[in-house]
């Protein structure tokens, strides 16, 4: 059994339970207490980000879901960003594609219709492997986004050797929903039925135990997730159709059913009958069903009398849908298989891992690699850097016109602009700056917020909300942790300065190369804004160039 829990954490579990958990229970705790799901190393700092404001409809509760802001006429905008870095490093096509699928399901979990995607890609040296990575990442994003009919309206494509082994694939999505129809991710009453749609398979299983049992020598298999955008599209369409009939929606991401059920119960309890879970492979073990990370699945909490109505929609398209359990009053999460208890743990324990604060230390910076450069050489170097050449080959592979609302298209402006259902124009942009961040992460945190805002301003928009994504190396390394803390401080300060609520975000640690060196710190922000007055669009025909600010 492979666990990521520390000795100290295991002690806490034993003490609270006053017994030794069984294997399935360890895996359950391991999934819920993972950095990915629990934010145990980052939560303390994330609390400093300003998450409220007059326009905030739904703020981020415990950093688990997308937030929403008011965009007028009864409409709310839901916004989220996420990365799929590690899967993209080993299987760039499916890794990037499943990243798109994941972010889309976050948006539909709120009952919102996804209307636009952004992709921010960072890869290393453009050697044979680098080219293979970019090419497949871009086609993977297009494959999923195009197939489900959500336009990819903008993004970034940047190159830096720090990403040689660890490319960064960030995707952001915005969706729209009537303010009074937002669906929560958590339940408030017991007696609701848990309904799961989609098959469960081997995908994302830690691998070790399964591989050694059945597929000797193929340890990575479980870790590979294959994208199925067709299933993704069915899920999007039908989830939005049944949203009015359900009490809560949760998508299944990292940690699978274990995490979705526990977080949905939110302190109440749940009973899940694992034999009712529709399986793609008959011989999955009960504890594997609990933590499988198969894509294109959703969990609904549904009033008993509505279950039939919800499932019949899916069954009509031959898509599996099953009632697998219910929400209980007793605050315990119980997984049963044919009546036998597989795992039984207090909700409280699962939802509250011991938080950690690692030692932090500022790294000595050396400015040694600066040398005098000739102006001509500098200009040529800058103008031919792959970061700055036309990205048309990339964005022309995305269907950025679907939805008939993309007003400012990729390549046409510094921000993308899409038309909202109420006729208002929404500007979107994502930015990061790994070079500045490796110099001074605090200044960089401020600078990327300001840069994103400037990009919105070029189309005449004022920022209304942002989401951030904090990508760093191993938090147990003091310099890495220091940079992380400082970046959050910078983003927080700038967001407060501009009065822009941070309505969501994500943290991705452990981004490092094969030798264990961390990537340059790469916090990233995505901002949404509304165009006020006239849209700034198109190429200027005449006029003077005016430069603002000190050079």
């Amino acid at each position, binding site marked *: 059994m492979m666990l990521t829990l520390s000795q100290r954490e295991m002690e806490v579990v034993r003490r609270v339970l006053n017994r030794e958990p069984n294997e399935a229970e360890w895996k359950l705790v391991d999934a819920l207490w993972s950095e990915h799901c629990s934010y145990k190393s980052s939560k303390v700092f994330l609390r400093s980000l300003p998450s409220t404001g007059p326009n905030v409809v739904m703020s981020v509760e415990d950093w688990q879901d997308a937030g929403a802001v008011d965009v007028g006429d009864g409409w709310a905008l839901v916004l989220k960003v996420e990365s799929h870095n590690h899967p993209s490093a080993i299987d760039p096509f499916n890794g990037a594609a499943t990243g798109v699928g994941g972010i889309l399901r976050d948006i539909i979990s709120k009952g919102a219709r996804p209307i636009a995607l952004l992709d921010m890609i960072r890869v290393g040296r453009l050697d044979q492997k680098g080219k293979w990575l970019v090419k497949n990442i871009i*086609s993977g994003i*297009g494959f999923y986004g*195009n197939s489900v009919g959500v336009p990819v309206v903008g993004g970034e494509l940047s190159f830096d050797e720090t990403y040689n082994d660890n490319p960064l694939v960030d995707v952001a999505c915005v969706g729209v929903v009537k303010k009074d129809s937002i669906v929560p991710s958590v339940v408030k009453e017991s007696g609701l039925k848990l309904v799961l749609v989609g098959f469960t398979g081997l995908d994302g299983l830690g691998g070790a135990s399964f591989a050694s049992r059945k597929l000797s020598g193929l340890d990575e298999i479980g870790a590979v997730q294959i994208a199925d955008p067709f299933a993704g599209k069915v899920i999007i369409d039908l989830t939005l159709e049944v949203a009015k009939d359900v009490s809560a929606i949760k998508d299944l991401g990292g940690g699978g059913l274990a995490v979705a059920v526990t977080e949905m119960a939110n302190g109440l309890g749940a009973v899940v009958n694992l034999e009712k879970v529709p399986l793609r492979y008959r011989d999955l073990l009960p504890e594997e069903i609990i933590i499988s990370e198969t894509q294109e699945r959703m969990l609904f909490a549904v009033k008993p009398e509505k279950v039939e109505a919800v499932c019949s929609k899916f069954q009509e398209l031959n898509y599996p849908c099953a009632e697998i359990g219910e929400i209980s009053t007793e605050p315990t999460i119980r997984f049963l298989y044919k009546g036998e208890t597989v795992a039984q743990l207090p909700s409280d324990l699962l939802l509250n891992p011991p938080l950690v604060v690692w030692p932090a230390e500022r790294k000595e910076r050396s400015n040694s690699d600066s040398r005098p450069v000739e102006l001509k050489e500098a200009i040529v170097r800058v103008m031919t850097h792959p970061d700055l050449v036309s990205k048309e080959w990339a*964005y*022309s592979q*995305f269907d950025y*016109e*679907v939805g*008939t609302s993309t007003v400012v298209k990729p390549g046409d402006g510094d921000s993308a602009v899409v*038309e909202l259902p109420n006729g208002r124009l929404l500007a979107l942009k994502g930015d990061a700056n790994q070079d500045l961040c490796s110099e001074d992460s605090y200044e960089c945190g401020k600078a990327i917020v300001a840069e994103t805002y400037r990009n919105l301003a070029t189309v005449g928009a004022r920022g209304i909300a942002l989401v951030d994504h904090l990508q760093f190396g191993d938090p147990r390394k003091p310099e890495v942790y220091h940079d992380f803390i400082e970046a959050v401080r910078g983003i927080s300060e700038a967001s407060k300065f501009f009065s822009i609520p941070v309505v969501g975000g994500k943290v991705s640690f452990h981004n490092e190369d094969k030798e264990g060196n961390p990537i340059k710190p790469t916090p990233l922000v995505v901002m949404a804004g509304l165009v006020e007055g006239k849209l700034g669009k198109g190429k200027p025909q005449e006029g003077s160039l005016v430069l603002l600010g000190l050079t």
Partner: protein
Amino acid sequence: MRTAVLKFPGTTCEIDVAKALKKVGAEVEVVQFNKFDPDRYGGVVIPGGFSFGDYIRAGTIAANSEAMKRVKDMADEGKLVLGICNGFQILVESNILKGALLPNLNLRFITRWVRVKVRRRDTQFTKDSKETLFMPIAHMEGRYFLDDEELASRLSLFQYVDESGLPTPEANPNGSILNIAGISNDAGNVVGLMPHPERASFSTISPDGSTDGLEILKVFGK
């Protein structure tokens, strides 16, 4: 005209098409493929997207559906049938229109605004339309092919052209024979094309404010 917009699982453009059809005054209904009653409609539009994921080949699985047998009946009765992008692929895969749509020559998905020239006036869709139309394409498998060039030329309805109206190789985004962007049957009531007229129906999103797509769609408004 009462017009059905036929939705398969994986169709992505049904809302856009319905929006554009309403603009020309058509009475539009988006219909699920398994609930399609052709007798209720004077015309049908099969919109773009990735029906059944476009697995095996674009349009193949949808072409096997009952719904497409009914579309065939409508076509035979002389009703209006329009297939856009994936809809064109489905019409070809169902043998309602002749030929094949192969992967683009550059093997990549391509989004781009293109100009097409109207080559025939004997269809209800084009009998009084403008000479050239500006519309976007967005597809992976749009290279029109037919093993009989003479026939292809006869069916050819829209042809990719450059700024000066010539069907040059540079104007051909995907390698279609004879720069074919769309075809019609001999009777002129069934049309399939790769460009998206519904995306060229709103001046806010077209690069030059034009709305040439309406030229093709307006027949449903009658």
